[in-house]
């Protein structure tokens, strides 16, 4: 069978980093190809080249037998390649129909031809079972529905090759299942699909063929039927996975954090509406939920960036501080989701970032004067203790380099180290740890290191609250799982009492 898409010898470098190393791949009509790899393996770079966002140093792309000009997204669109990005490219205030039509009409036409477009959209939607309200503003749709609009947009433009970049990251398990059956309808109709993922289960569920990328290289390209999860994992990581750290069965201690009917409003974010939760010493409570159900506001509240409009938040029985400096002063260890925007100041050096939360403490400043050597020593200590790696570390000039030069995983280790050292100023340990998406976008090694630290803190009696969109992470860490939906915790159970299906239903708002 003649392939509909052929990549030959694609090489792309970013400075010294080889993001794609002579990758050759072919995609046939009626085929789902899963592109599997860890974050940073080069999956997104490869499809960005395919779609014309990046220009490869070497190699060619052919679609339907014709070479595709490099760096020209319009040509890729015209050739029938459609892309569904992880972060949607939709205008919230426009309707579904307007979003789908956007950019498809010549600018000089005085009126939009809505009637014809509406008929065409309805036709496509019916053919693939993608029901949507054409007149609904996109902003009013759920995330799963918005993704459907993105797919319809691509189909409306005549896409015959559909690229989906981590499409399940924002979906509940049920919505993911629905997406997979839609994909089956696509390939039955002769379309070809590239499905990007780092999750083994869904790759095994949906793909006909699996291409595995590791560190920019294509390490495997096999039919799904001839492989299994363990083998794929081995290819993806390059080694056997280490077993999860041991955790003792122990009853939780006294309650450390207590939320009672808390309402919080933060401009531009889904609010908390009557959230109640308890986190005790010696347990990890994980918050599960579809993105956009109030998790970000909960994080803001516990980081000290937002304060409750009503209800009470208590830490060891006292009122929770409403400013970051108060929260830090109370010994709370905080790990934000946005490690570059919130967790670190990129222009400042590693050691300055290490000490920033306590720069006014007696350890780092006397009479307003910085004790720079103390700060540097502390930075060096953190880098060593938390295995932060980078050029010139741990003993070279790397300590003076701006924090922006660290990779995500190493930056996260530094932030976690800084957070965990907070409670230690009086010799005690962190009592409460709040971690928002602690391993988002990190490679397996860094994930394991951070999970080990969090479990270790639990063993030491800390109260740990983890907010995560990664269900694997939630099941790996949690003693208890609380499901958040529309700004409140609708159900909390011990992790062993949840099944994946029940958790999915609860995340979608249905009580089991």
């Amino acid at each position: 069978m003649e392939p509909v898409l052929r990549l030959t010898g694609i090489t792309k470098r970013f400075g010294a980093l080889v993001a794609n190393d002579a990758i050759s791949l072919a995609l046939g009509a009626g085929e789902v190809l899963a592109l599997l790899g860890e974050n940073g393996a080069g999956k997104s770079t490869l499809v960005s080249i395919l779609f014309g966002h990046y220009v490869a140093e070497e190699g060619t792309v052919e679609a339907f037998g014709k070479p595709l000009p490099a760096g020209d997204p319009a040509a890729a669109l015209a050739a029938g390649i459609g892309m569904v990005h992880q972060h949607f490219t939709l205008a919230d205030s426009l309707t579904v129909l307007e979003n789908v039509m956007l950019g498809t009409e010549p600018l000089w036409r005085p009126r939009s031809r809505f009637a014809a477009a509406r008929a065409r959209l309805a036709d496509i939607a019916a053919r693939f079972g993608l029901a949507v309200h054409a007149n609904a503003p996109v902003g009013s749709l759920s995330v799963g529905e918005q993704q459907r609009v993105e797919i319809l947009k691509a189909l409306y433009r005549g896409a015959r090759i559909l690229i989906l970049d981590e499409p399940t990251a924002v979906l509940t398990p049920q919505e993911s299942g629905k997406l997979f059956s839609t994909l089956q309808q696509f390939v039955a109709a002769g379309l070809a699909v590239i499905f990007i993922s780092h999750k083994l289960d869904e790759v095994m569920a949906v793909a006909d063929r699996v291409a595995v990328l590791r560190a920019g290289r294509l390490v495997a390209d096999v039919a799904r039927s001839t492989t299994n999860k363990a083998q794929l994992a081995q290819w993806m990581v390059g080694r056997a996975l280490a077993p999860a750290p041991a955790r003792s069965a122990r009853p939780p201690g006294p309650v450390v954090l207590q939320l009672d009917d808390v309402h919080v409003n933060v401009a531009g974010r889904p609010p908390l509406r009557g959230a109640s939760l308890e986190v005790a010493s010696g347990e990890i409570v994980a918050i599960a939920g579809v993105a956009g159900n109030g998790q970000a506001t909960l994080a803001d509240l516990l980081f000290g960036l937002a304060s409750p409009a009503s209800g009470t938040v208590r830490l060891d029985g006292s009122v929770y501080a409403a400013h970051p400096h108060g929260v830090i002063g109370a010994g709370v260890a905080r790990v934000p989701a946005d490690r570059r925007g919130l967790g670190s100041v990129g222009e400042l050096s590693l050691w300055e970032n290490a000490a920033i939360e306590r720069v006014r403490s007696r350890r780092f400043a006397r009479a307003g004067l910085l004790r720079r050597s103390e700060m540097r020593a502390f930075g060096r200590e953190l880098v060593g203790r938390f295995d932060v790696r980078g050029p010139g570390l741990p003993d070279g000039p790397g300590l003076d380099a701006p924090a922006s030069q660290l990779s995500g995983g190493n930056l996260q280790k530094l932030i976690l180290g800084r957070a965990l050292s907070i409670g230690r100023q009086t010799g005690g340990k962190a009592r409460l740890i709040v971690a928002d998406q602690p391993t988002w976008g990190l490679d397996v090694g860094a994930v394991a290191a951070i999970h080990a630290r969090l479990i270790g803190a639990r063993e030491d009696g800390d109260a740990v609250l983890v907010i995560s969109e990664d269900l694997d992470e939630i099941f790996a860490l949690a003693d208890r799982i609380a499901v958040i939906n529309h700004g409140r915790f609708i159900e909390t159970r011990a992790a062993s009492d949840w099944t994946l299906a029940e958790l999915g239903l609860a995340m979608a708002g249905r009580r089991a």
Partner: protein
Amino acid sequence: MRLEARDRVSRVAAIGAPLGAVVATLVISALLVRWAGAPVLASFGALLQGGFGSRFALAETLTRATPLIFTGLAAAVAFRARFFNIGAEGQLYLGALAAVAVGGQLGGALDLPSPVLFVAMLIAAALAGSLWLAIAAVLRTRLAVDEVVTTLLTNFVVLLFVSWMLDGPMKDPTAMGWPQSVSLPAELELTKVIERTRLHSGFVLALLCALALWALSKFTAFGFEARAVGANAQAARFAGIRVDATVVKTALISGALAGLAGAVEVAGRTGYVTLDMSPGYGYAGIVVAMLAALHPLAVVPAAIFIAGMFVGADSMSRAVGVPTYIADVIVAVALLAVLVATQIVRYRVRWT
């Protein structure tokens, strides 16, 4: 065409870029000089000679650089914390007015020893600039009013206020009706650093301020916080830094420096306040700060460069007949070239 961040800034590029900026400035200004019909080398020679070529020229340049160092520092310290104080011009005038009010009027009434009066005069000038800018800072931190707008527009309010003062309560009765303030007593005037020139000890004070500001930024907890706030206010807030308080403190320092510029001009050069005592030193200070990449110590050479260009252009225009506006052009081209050069060091251009 798009810009891609470079992975690593090479040392060659980091040193070469400013040199490239100087060359670009020279080439572009040479073309303009040619266009004006003057010989290029002779014109540049006259420019350098007039700005730096003799004891007198150098002293004149440093005299002009003195207020520019103060206003440059005022802009640099504020911009570093992303508080865009465009009002140094107004703060300068208020500083000058306060200096005369304390040193000339109040001092005359109280009969204090002159060293005490001198210090009180400087403090008054610093406070005048400081408190005036504090209004904009509080509006920004409390009500999110854009400080660019408030500081820029209140400059004109200040000028009208000064105009009223010079024609009213602070008018010099002996000035034959000219709108100028009463004069400072001679014992409050700054001493001359070089004989038979106008260079006064205000220049030394400016150097000390640059040094102090650098030390403040590097060695104090406040300086650290201000740098963090300027680099990423969100992250600074997350890390427990009181961002609003830091911005207000920064504004107080910035306003004080601009106020001192006014006091030093009055005490070192003019002796009294007129409505045209500053040819836009407050605005030029922004250019100085940008040219210095907001580094307090680099403000000094940047101010001297700009002052030298203006002083040199005066004598160049007399010698070869090129209009003095060439100095404005050279300064503007130099600023643009330096800004472009710093971006080229950090980014590469990709043609797509």
